[in-house]
């Protein structure tokens, strides 16, 4: 009953979205800080490092771009890598579309900008539970909570990163970050196939310049996942 009351108006629906996002922010904040620290050490200016968090606003792509900036990759290759790693957002877009259909273009634009992994996860769970008039304010609240936490943690990371000596091997936290992101969603045989074949392909093709081995691994991994489904 209490939940019903919360969703009566715009403000409470917005706040409900913020509140639902809070537990996720505990996990996101260290990522933002690690990103900021690595970006500051990869040769980006503080302004560039901070701006990327609102212009690109996608954690794993930002981590990847930082790595590529550090090895002076050509722009076109960086863009290609950025697109591949962000392709999943098309899927999120298709998934929330039935719930945003009735909104005007301004709302669609704002909510699409805020459609990150973490805001998507919280919002879609909530929408699947129930439908009500002000539900887009819930999405807005969840998205803006995440956006704010991402900007602030980036700023803290940039500040801290400048003080960390290279001997600490901070760059290894990047590999750990990707492990923390990639391993939990592997929950069935096809996704395990996808992960293993992608990992092996990336290793075998590591001689390719500018991390183009990631593109090769993505293609092989996705094919392995789809084929794996047929053998289940």
């Amino acid at each position, binding site marked *: 009953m209490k939940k019903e009351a919360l969703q009566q108006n715009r403000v409470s629906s917005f706040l409900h979205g913020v509140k639902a996002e809070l537990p996720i922010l*505990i*996990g996101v904040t*260290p*990522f933002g800080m690690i990103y900021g620290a690595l970006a500051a050490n990869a040769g980006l*200016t503080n302004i560039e490092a901070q*701006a990327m968090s609102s*212009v*690109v606003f996608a954690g794993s*792509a930002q981590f990847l*771009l930082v790595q590529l*900036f550090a090895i002076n990759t050509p*722009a076109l290759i*960086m*863009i290609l890598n*950025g*697109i*591949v*790693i962000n*392709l*999943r*957002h*098309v*899927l999120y*877009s*298709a998934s929330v*579309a039935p719930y945003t*259909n009735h909104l005007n273009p301004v709302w*669609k*634009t704002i909510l*699409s*900008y805020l459609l990150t992994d973490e805001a998507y996860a919280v919002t879609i769970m909530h929408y699947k539970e129930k439908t009500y008039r002000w539900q887009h304010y819930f999405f807005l609240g969840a998205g803006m909570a995440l956006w704010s936490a991402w900007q602030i943690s980036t700023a803290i990371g940039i500040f801290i990163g400048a003080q960390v000596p290279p001997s*600490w*091997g901070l760059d*290894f936290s990047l*590999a*750990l970050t*990707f*492990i*923390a*992101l*990639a*391993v*939990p*969603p*592997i929950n069935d045989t096809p*996704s395990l196939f*996808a*992960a293993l074949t*992608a*990992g*092996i392909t*990336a*290793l075998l093709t590591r*001689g390719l310049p500018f991390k183009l*081995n990631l593109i090769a*691994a*993505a293609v092989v991994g*996705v094919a392995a*996942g*789809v084929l794996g489904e047929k053998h289940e």
Partner: protein
Amino acid sequence: MNKNWLVMIVVGILTFLMRLSFVVLAERWQPPEWLTRALRYVPIAVLTAIFIPDMVAQDQTIVNVIVNSRFIAGLAAILIAWRTKNTILTISLGMAIFWGLNWLL
């Protein structure tokens, strides 16, 4: 405009368009089922492809993994991530093991 800004803005715009895609198109076009299924494997494949070479190769040469702190700490982190699904625990314990091994080896 320098390269950093160019890459950032282009990737930013394209990411936004990917997020906007079906929110705008949904009324006219639904994605075919094979595409939705295939896209599900993209993040898993790309993310794994990033960290595996970091664990076993340095400067493109495969290292002796038995005495390599990145490999052992990475393997421990994979186990932690798999068992706990906890990101903070994975990163902090993984980093602690990495530092401990560097000190030992």
